[in-house]
């Protein structure tokens, strides 16, 4: 087997030196009746070209020839090739968690840079060195809030990613915590009225911004209501590219989210990289790895894993979380990606996404029978009401090699025939126009409705 570095002679020499007669002897500890009799029923062995062929086959049954307008927590952005070139260096991707700081400064310094970038983006004081994904990061934020406030009610915006809510429910099910939801307004934004009443003696409110319907919440207003009630405000961000042009949720107590947008492949849902940032005062309640700056025996600056006393390997059942392995390499990916973009690039890219999505929304809303029902400002995602049955339309778009967004009915029964459409820099004007054409084909009839639609949806510039 090409991966195994020991030759038959070396094996024999070691076996003898270890004082054993046979390989079987090494497994003497295992009772005979527990041993496997037949060989495993598995495919292989395959040579390298055969492995490549196997996965090329699988890849041929994919959407690789389609343009995707799907977002909803996983965003297609262009990935500069330098990112893979760097994370593919063996010293990075074949290293373990940096327990031995002297020979892990590469990972440690990069993760310190990641923590800094996340703090800068979110407007928080501190951030950790990544969690599994946005859903578990949001969940850990809630668990933090429960520990901090010692309260046991959690209020969720219904416009939080539905799968994030499901994950949260799984984690808190046995903590006797009750989880309540608040609806959204016709604008797509959080219903502040409902908030007032429900947030009282709650541990925290969790909102997402831009929310699952694409609407950008006014964190500032919300935070005042939440803090008046003595609760914590947790803001989740699934598309952090938006923070290139959006005011950071600095009034929040904890900001959680998903950094997949930053150079991590969409890869059918993972691996991604969750982030968690908070105010300085909650620092010791943060779960997961934290990298700290320090000095060495000769006064040189260096980095170490710190505040390990929060963690499972020390605190065991009393730990702030059970997380051990996190998503370092994806965090490194995001760090390199953000370093490449930098201040200028991040802003420009965010502006491109904004422009593409607004061009698409504008084109669509001009089509009879089509509407963009939620008037709140959006970034690169928005909701479209389809002129015909959404599945019919999606099928028609597939004919054009376009995956036309997410049918919201799956998560929001009241939003039958509504699509969540995401338009990033990877979608060309030509594709947007082709998509528009398909809508138009279905949209000719029922003109009255369409004007109504158009009225209901003039974009609301806050300045105007």
């Amino acid at each position: 087997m090409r991966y195994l570095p020991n030759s038959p002679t070396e094996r024999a020499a070691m076996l003898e030196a270890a004082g054993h007669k046979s390989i079987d002897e090494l497994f003497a500890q295992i009772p005979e009746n527990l041993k496997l009799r037949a060989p495993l029923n598995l495919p292989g062995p395959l040579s390298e070209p055969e492995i490549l062929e196997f996965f090329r086959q699988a890849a041929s049954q994919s959407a690789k020839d389609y343009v995707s307008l799907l977002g909803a927590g996983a965003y297609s952005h262009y990935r500069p090739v330098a990112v893979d070139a760097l994370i593919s260096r063996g010293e990075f991707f074949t290293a373990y968690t940096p327990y031995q700081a002297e020979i892990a400064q590469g990972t440690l310094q990069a993760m310190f840079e990641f923590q800094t970038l996340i703090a800068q983006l979110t407007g928080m004081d501190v951030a950790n060195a990544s969690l599994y994904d946005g859903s578990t990061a949001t969940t850990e934020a809630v668990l933090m809030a429960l520990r901090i406030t010692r309260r046991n009610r959690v209020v969720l915006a219904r416009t939080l990613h539905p799968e994030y809510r499901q994950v949260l429910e799984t984690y808190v099910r046995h903590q006797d915590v009750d989880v309540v939801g608040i609806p959204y307004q016709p604008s797509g934004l959080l219903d502040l009225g409902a908030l007032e009443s429900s947030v009282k003696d709650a541990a925290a409110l969790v909102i997402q911004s831009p929310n699952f319907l694409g609407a950008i919440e006014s964190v500032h207003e919300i935070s005042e209501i939440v803090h008046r009630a003595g609760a914590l405000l947790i803001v989740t961000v699934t598309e952090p590219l938006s923070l290139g042009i959006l005011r950071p949720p600095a009034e929040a107590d904890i900001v959680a989210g998903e950094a997949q947008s930053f150079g991590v492949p969409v890869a059918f849902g993972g691996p991604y990289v969750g982030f968690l940032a908070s105010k300085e005062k909650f620092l010791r309640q943060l779960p997961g790895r934290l990298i700290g700056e320090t000095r060495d025996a000769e006064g040189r600056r260096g980095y170490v894993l710190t505040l390990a006393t929060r963690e499972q390997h020390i605190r065991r059942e009393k730990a702030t979380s059970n997380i051990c392995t996190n998503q370092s390499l994806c965090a490194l990916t995001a760090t390199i990606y953000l370093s490449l973009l930098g201040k200028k690039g991040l802003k420009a890219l965010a502006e491109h996404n904004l422009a593409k999505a607004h061009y698409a929304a504008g084109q669509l809303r001009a089509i009879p029978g089509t509407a963009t029902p939620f008037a709140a400002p959006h970034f690169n995602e928005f909701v479209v009401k389809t002129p015909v049955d959404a599945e019919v339309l999606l099928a028609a778009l597939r004919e054009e090699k376009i995956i036309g967004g997410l049918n919201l009915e799956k998560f929001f029964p009241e939003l039958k025939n509504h699509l969540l459409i995401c338009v990033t820099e990877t979608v060309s004007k030509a594709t947007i126009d082709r998509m528009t054409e398909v809508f138009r084909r279905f949209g000719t009839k029922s003109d009255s409705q369409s004007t109504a639609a158009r009225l209901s949806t003039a974009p609301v510039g806050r300045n105007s």
Partner: protein
Amino acid sequence: MGNPIRQARPHVTRNEDLIFERTSPGKSGVDLPPLDVPAVSAEDVLGADLYRADVDGFPEVSELEVIRHYTRLSTWNYGVDTGLYPLGSCTMKYNPRINETVARLDGPATDHPYAPASLAQGCLKILAETARCLAEITGMDAVSLQPAAGAQGELTGILIIRACLAERGDPRKFILIPDSAHGTNPASATISGYEVRNLKSNARGCVDLAELDRVMTDDVAGLMLTNPNTLGIFETQIREIADRVHAKGGLVYMDGANMNALVGVARPADFGVDVMHLNLHKTFSTPHGGGGPGSGPVAVKKFLEPYLPTPTVEQTSEGAYRLNYNRPKSIGRVRAFYGNFGMAVRALAYILANGPAGLRQTTEDAVLNANYVLSQLKDVYDLPYDQPCMHECVFSDRRQAARGVRTGDIAKRLIDYGFHPYTTAFPLIVPGALMIEPTESACKPELDQFIEALRSIAEEIEQDPEFVLKAPYTTRVRRLDEAHAARKPVLRWRPGKPLEQPSR
């Protein structure tokens, strides 16, 4: 002092600042294509109070500087590609390059999790096929790839136990966990709403049946057992253990982090295990990436299948793959989407490359290597549980501690010899543990150098313990002050003078 240190010195590179400290205004490492739609004013569209002009303190560097910065940082890391990485309990084996290639193919790397099933058959097939292989390897009946790492696999498994018992009428109060267990075990049990009841190991470092009978009361939901345990010892009585737990109406969870000792040789299903997790980033060669991403699939017996996380991947009678969301008894979701898919791709590539015979040979080599190390060092390092081991061996620093040198110090000195250290101070039942897992990826010549190094260090400790206490001597930084880091934590860069001097 001891043998001369045989080492190869890479050339020096300049000191490296933080990326933020390399910034100069106006630079960027990317240029965007021209915008092909009308530009919009973000400030107008968003309104003044939602608009942000820019991100303060963000880096501004060219592509070249990014390449140099992270290339240099990488040279201060040690990886499996650099050399022997005998970190106990972590199974630091070779990460085949072909895994990385196939995981980056268009399709597996680019498909969206919400793509219609008709356009995701390839990805769904990879998930289904990986699950099938893992079921075959463990002997279990069903597998979920949703958990993102081992700890989340544990949580998922214990939640499954709870859901099952709850349906039987009573979820019960306690989970039994041996004192030798990994910290994630109790932590995961707690989140599942259980109290942890500690199970003391016997003189062999294994489960004591009498003690088990004492603590396995009928308010105990189950036992969380690592096998081979964290001493690298197989729980010979596992079948009896499982029977007794079952007899009391409890279920048995197995932490499969140490499966590298068993693949192709024995199957947990035959041990009486009801539910377990695997670490694809250990046993199945997916890279650790400096601390993840990992993947912690959960495998269960038939009767627990209804409780697996949602969705599951199924194959229709026509052979098409689909996601099943209609699972009323499921514990729900532990993660968005379907888990760390990219790790499944790599693990499957590894299984295909090896085939049944290769996987068994791999296990044999892993166990042989560990026993070879054990046999060559037991005369100089104390072996608290003196018996043949499986995939790893655990010494203690008892003799060296007598001269004031602890396992952590020996580890630092080992770095000077060009090796990544073993795991220090785990498991907790061995004071001052040296936990050594060579894996199958260590060849004899390298193990001989490693053994020579540890013997030489033992000798150095006899002659000059002070010298060893100050190690390492050859690294970029040495003996970083962890107390200082924790006292007044600096977790991010801020503009202005850095707190500490950059290293010189």
